[in-house]
């Protein structure tokens, strides 16, 4: 079995678990935790997608010596693009999580409750 496929499957499962958490947990902090699991799942999928069987990290001075002919580099490394994307995604994820938690703090300060059903003022 390919590492990439394992990573992608785990990623999907994490997403399912995260969504489960988001949809069933009453506690808003737990919902944010669900999100963070969801995010981790996303990242795993992305990294898994970029994995090339037997590839090394896309850094040219480690496993692949400098001066290697370009064609060999292509054969030797994993796809760097998804990794670049994941870097961005992780930081964005942190931003979102932090902001959600900031909202949680404010919500809690106002109403002293962490139950999501206490915040249904706006509806219909």
């Amino acid at each position, binding site marked *: 079995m390919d590492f990439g496929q394992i990573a992608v499957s785990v990623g999907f499962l994490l997403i399912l678990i995260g969504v*489960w958490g988001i949809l069933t947990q009453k506690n808003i902090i737990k919902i944010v*935790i669900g999100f*963070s*699991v969801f995010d981790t799942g996303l990242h795993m999928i992305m*990294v898994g997608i970029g994995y090339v069987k037997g590839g090394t990290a896309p850094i040219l001075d480690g496993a692949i010596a400098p001066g290697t002919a370009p064609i060999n580099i292509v054969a030797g490394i994993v796809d760097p693009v998804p990794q670049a994307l994941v870097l961005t995604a992780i930081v964005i994820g942190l931003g979102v999580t932090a902001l959600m938690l900031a909202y949680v*703090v404010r919500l809690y300060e106002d109403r002293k409750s962490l139950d999501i059903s206490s915040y249904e003022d706006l509806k219909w």
Partner: protein
Amino acid sequence: MLSLIIMISLSVLILASAILAVQTKNLVVAVIAAGLVSLMASIGYLLLAAPDVAMTEAAIGSGLSTIIFFYVLNRVRGRDNG
């Protein structure tokens, strides 16, 4: 072969911690479990030949987020207890 075993057991651990993170009633345990998910994922990233991602996930996903979670927990629990 060894790495495959590591990878699979890592996956099982990740999923187990994720379920724990989502299902447990104890918020502290949940936050730690979520942090663990990230941490083990970053080990997984190393196996997937993604050291950059691994570093980032470790520093940000399991490090900083967990810290922020704890700040918030502290803030909220302090209120709950008195």
